[in-house]
Every structure is written in C-alpha cells, then in structure tokens.
C-alpha cells in the first residue's frame, strides 16, 4: 500500500505521542482521587508492567512479518471467523477514536472556547486528522519528527516554570494508604494508553528494521509513561492530591499557576498546545489504523477513500458516545479497563496463538 515505511526512530516518536496524547488529560484526576498523594506511583508502576505487554505485542508484530493485524486474523482464522475477530478489533479502534476526539472537544469547550459548538470543534480537528492520515504513514512519521522537539521543549518549560511552587509535603506520606489503592488506580493507566497499544500492530508492518522497531516501541512507551508520571507528580506536588482530584484537567490548572517573575503569566495555553499536538498524533494513528484495517477487512486496494466516510461516522459517534462528562468518567472507571483488556490483550493472544498454529501448519505441509 504505497511507499509508507517509517524508521524505528519515527515509530518511537509516534509511540511517545500516542502514550501521552489524551492520557495526559485523563490520567491525573482518577489516580489522584484513588491513590491520593501516591498518584504518581500508580502511573510509574504500570509503566514497568507495560513493558511486558509491549514486549509481547512487538514480538507478535515481528512474527507477523509484513502482515497487519487484520490480515493476520484473516490468515489465521479464515475468512469468516477471522473477519469477526477483526470486526471487534476495528470497532475497538473506532470507538477509541471517537472517545479521544471527544476528549479534546470536551477540553476545548470546557476550558478555552465554551461558546463554540462541540460538533464544529470536532469537525475541524478531524479534518486536519483526515488530511494527515491521507498523506500516509511516512508523512505522519516525518511530521512527528518536527513536533517532538517542540513538545519536549514545552514540557520542559512547564516543569521548569512551575517548579518554584513545588511543595514536597504534598507527596507525604508515601504509601500512606497502603499499596492497594495504588494497584487499583494503576488500572487506569493500564487501560488508557497501554492496552490501546495494540493499535500499533496495524502500523508495525510498515516500520523498517523490525528488531530495532521492537526496542523503539518499548522505549517509546517508557518515555511516554515517564512524561505522564512527571505530569501527575507535578500536579500533586504543586496542588496537592485533593485539588488534583477535584480538577477535571489538573495539568491545565497546573499551568495556570505559572507565574515567573511576575510577568510570565497566563501561559496555560502552552499546555493546551502540547495536548493538541499529542492528541492529534494519537488520533491520526488511530484513524490510520482504523481505515487501513477496514480496507484490509474489505480487501480494498487503498484505505484513502474510506477516510472521509469514516470521519463522518466518527464525528457522530463522538457526539452520541456519552451524554455528559459523568457518564464518561463512570465508563472510564468501570468498563474501559475490561474492554481494553479483552481487545488489547485477549484478542491479540488469541490471534497470536491461531497465527502460530496456522503458520506451523502451512510450513509443515
């Protein structure tokens, strides 16, 4: 499908952006609500556990050689059952895409432009995403190389300029509530970026140097996880766990508190820019994976014609997906982890098993 191949480094950048995107909005609040001052631990802990998941996914990806996940499912389980499994996978991606889109829309209409209708915010964002996805993976990878330094620079600026307001007391007592709330709140992180990584199995075939790419995947997830840990850590350090949990968008509130030398104020828009960039890349990957998967599913030559119709559907779903923010919080807290677990872990395991058996079978015969 065209000449889109990306280098392991570009792939790593995409993984970082994917990990940070939208999780940076979602993670701090529920973790601080549950794990209180240990919220950062409940992000750091699953980052290490996530290495295992990604190791499995990347090994699987290497064994797939140049097949995408959907192609592998069809190869392993045949035209009908394989397609059924792929359908679950694709619907997972599609729903995730709609939720991510809604995340940025919610954020924008809550914090920055309350009078702008949600639909238009979504449509504009999605148009740019479609534009990006249409250019293919190669261009997405290259533009990630342009943006990554800026994201790091802005993050550094955020951390640096908020550091005078750190209060170390906010972190104590460490492990004051025991390990249990940390474990249960770490499910949020597992569910939100980590298990979603299965989407990269649609991208992985297009990465050059598979061995290096596997390492880049793990490294990218680690760096992304570290950024999220830092964001959570700083939120708690500056605002305390109570206010972090109270805020819908703690990292944005964090940036609002920046006041350097009395004149550098009101720079919270910097955080909004980080979010928009990371969420953009997350969505573009999701979108690419979704339409490419659908094209594979339907045996189409090119995924590009699918982009616009899919976009229409995604805008609708993003609007109807939840009536209010409370519904989303409940969904995220209660169901999402299980949903992500079945699609992000169970499904690849099944297909991996089927794929290995089938491959051994075809090789022997």
């Amino acid at each position: 499908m065209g000449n889109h191949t990306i280098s392991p480094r570009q792939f790593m950048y995409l993984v970082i952006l994917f990990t940070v995107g939208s999780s940076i909005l979602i993670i701090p609040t529920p973790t601080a609500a549950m794990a209180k001052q240990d919220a950062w631990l409940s992000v750091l802990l699953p980052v290490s556990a996530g290495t295992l998941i990604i190791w499995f996914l990347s090994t699987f990806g290497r064994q797939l050689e140049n097949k995408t996940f959907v192609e592998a499912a069809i190869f392993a389980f045949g035209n009908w059952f394989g397609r059924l499994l792929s359908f679950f996978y694709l619907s997972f991606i599609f729903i995730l895409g709609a939720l991510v889109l809604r995340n940025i829309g919610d954020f924008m209409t809550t914090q920055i432009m309350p009078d702008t209708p949600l639909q238009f915010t979504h449509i504009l964002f999605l148009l740019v995403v479609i534009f990006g996805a249409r250019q293919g993976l190669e261009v997405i990878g290259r533009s990630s190389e342009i943006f990554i330094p800026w994201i790091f620079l802005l993050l550094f600026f955020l951390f640096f300029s908020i550091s005078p307001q750190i209060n170390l007391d906010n972190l104590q007592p460490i492990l004051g509530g025991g390990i249990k709330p940390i474990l249960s709140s770490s499910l949020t992180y597992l569910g939100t970026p980590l298990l979603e990584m299965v989407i990269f199995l649609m991208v992985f075939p297009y990465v050059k140097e598979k061995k290096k790419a596997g390492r880049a995947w793990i490294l990218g997830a680690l760096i992304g996880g570290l950024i999220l840990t830092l964001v959570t850590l700083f939120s708690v350090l500056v605002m305390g766990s109570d206010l972090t949990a109270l805020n819908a968008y703690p990292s944005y509130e964090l940036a609002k508190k920046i006041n350097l030398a009395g004149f550098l104020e009101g720079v919270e828009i910097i955080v909004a820019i980080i979010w928009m960039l990371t969420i953009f890349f997350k969505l573009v990957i999701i979108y690419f994976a979704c339409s490419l998967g659908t094209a594979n599913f339907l045996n189409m030559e090119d995924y590009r014609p699918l982009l616009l119709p899919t976009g229409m559907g995604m805008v609708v779903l993003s609007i109807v997906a939840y009536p209010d923010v409370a519904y989303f919080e409940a969904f995220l807290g209660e169901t999402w982890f299980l949903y992500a677990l079945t699609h992000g872990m169970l499904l690849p395991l099944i297909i991996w098993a089927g794929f290995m058996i089938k491959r051994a079978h075809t090789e022997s015969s």
Partner: protein
Amino acid sequence: MRHPLAPHGYVKWTLVWVVMVLTLTGCWSSRELDELGVAVAIGVDKDEDDRYVLSVQIINPSEVASDAPTTRPPVTLYTTTGDTLFQAFRNMTTHSPRKVYVSQLRMVVLGPEIVNEGVTPALDLLYRNHEFRPTFFVTVARDASVSDILSTLTPYERIPAKKLMDSLIDTEENLGITKSVTIDNLIADVRSNGKEAVLPGILMEGDAATGTSTTNVEKVDAPTKLSIDGLSIFRGDQLVGWLKEEESQGYNYATGTVQSTIETFACDNPGTLSVEILRSNASMDAQLRSGKPTITIRVEVEGNVGEVDCVIDLSDDDKMKDINKKTEEVIEKKINAAINVTQEEYASDIFGFGNVIHRNHPAYWKQIKYDWKSHFSELEVKTDVKVKIRRKGKSTQPLQSEG
C-alpha cells in the same frame, strides 16, 4: 512525477475550502477587547434577605491608560444581587454595558456576612468557572462593607485592586504579619481535615463616602485609605476570629512563610534593639509517644542587627549571643501566642498540625482524623527557634555611648 491534476490535489483544496467555509460560519467564542469589562476585584457578600451581593470592580481602560488627567474615575463598581453567585453574575449584564471578564482578576474580597456563614458556596463558582484563573488572592473585609472597600479610590496607584494586591504582597514580604492566600490554597485548606484556612483582612480607614469620589485622591494625604490588616482564622469554611499582629507573625514563623520582618526587644540597659530578619525556615515534625502525638516546630532565622537605641558593646561576642537568644525568645513567644490562641480560643488548626501527623504517622491519623478538632486543643507543641545574627550593618557600634 505525478500528473498536475492528480485527484490528490483536488481533495486537498476541497478540504481547505471546507475549512474556510466552516470557519467563516461563526466566531462563537470571540470577544473584542473593547467589549470586555476587565474585572480586577470582586466582592462577595450576603444581604439581609440572604441573597448574594456581588460587587465587581471594572477597569475603565481609557482612563487608566491615558496620560491626560480626567475627572472620571479609573475604575467602576457594579453591584448586583442574586439567589446564587452565578445568578448575580448574570444580573451584572443589566448594569454593566460590557461583558464582565474575570480572567485578569487580582483579588476577591469576602464580606463579613459570608465569612460568618461559610464561604464554600461562593468559592465553588470561583473555582469551577473556566474564566477564573487560580492565581487571584482572597481577602476578608474587616469592619467594612465590601462595596465600600471596593469603591474606595486609591492615590498613587490608579487601580485600587492592584494597590491592594501590591500592599498585600509587600506586607507579607516585609513585615510578615499577613499571608497572601490564593483561591486554590484556600480551597485546599478548607477541604482538608488537617489544616484550617487563614485569610488576610482589609481595613478601611476614614469615611466611606469620601473614598468613592475622585476628591479622595486629589489630596496629598488621602482621607480614606485601604490597608492590609492581620489574619483571620477559619474553622471549616467559617470565620471564627482574628489573629493579632504578633500572633500573625508567630503563625508565619511557624509555617516558615516569613520572608523579612523586624523583631524588637528591650536591651539590658534602657532602650531597645531591633533585629532585621532576612530569611526564615521552619519545619514541623510529629512524634508519637505512648499514643499521644507531639508536634515540634523548628524555626531557623537569619538576621542582621537593624537599629540599636541602647548602649551595648556590639564587638562583644557574648553580647551578640545574647541578642541571638533574646530574638529567639521574642519569636518563640509570638509563635506560642499564636498556638495558644488557636488552641484555646478558636480550636482551629491553622498550622496544619493535622497534616503533619498525617504525613509522619498515617496510621494514627486515620484513627483520629474525624475527631481531630478535639484532639487539636490538647495537642502538645514544642517550639525550637534558632536565630543567627550575621551582621551589624555599616556601624560597628551603637551611636549611643556610655559616656
């Protein structure tokens, strides 16, 4: 090479046009600068009918920015009422010709009624609404109505809210008798079990009526003045009392927020000696002995000899040690006074001893968390102040000599 008219190009430009049309359909959230009433201070109180009274001090930009002196005041005050604060805000539109814009808000003044009744309902809006940034200060109007304070014009600094903010920060930094509190600090303290809130007070001297007129600022010594005054003590979200100046200082020493101040004490010989405090550091610890917590406050202070109005041999090391010790005593006395008054009179843990216990002994804290108020009054607190006087200023000896 792709053909010039490959479909790719069509799509790209169609997208561009869709975006253009989409964007041209509306500018939903935009507000022109000249449509904004930039609010710098907000006053919240309640009237006799238990309705919220909202006063908003709005900048009159052309007056503030212009070089030519005018007779119109630099700020305007609008006051509305409403069943909720939000409603009062919306009622503002009937008074103010412009949309009230609060992102540049510097100060919120809470009225006597509302602080006695409980501030949480008022704080909710101030924290929930996206336009409010969490950097403005919250203060309490002391013995004056909120609208009187906010309608007082200040000399020298044209915007009264800015004057209030500046003097609040200056008083905090140079005198240590007050403490600036931003909205998120206040909310965190009000919501926390192990710490109670304090808020600085604003005092109005002089006649309220003269303060509102520009004649107030035309005199060299403005008849009506605003000043920052001490700290108020909260229990939960209600005001329960005020700290005296010295107690406020003691409070700031204990929490380590003193940046610079003056301590004065009597010499052995008649006269006084003042020490300029340059920096201070405080830490609190909780020890658990036989199931009873003890708090130790350690304060480290560094300073200079500031003013000597008595006869003393400053070249004598023992004398310097003596000054150290005396300063320590003065500071310790202030801290203890603050602790005593909060423990005995108000039963309000403004020092955050509860949080200290939580940090050091989480398990114990869990047992007493909900019963903390009663425990607080019996809490044993030790103070340990260390003062280091480093320098004596330009003169080596006092001007007064024994001869």
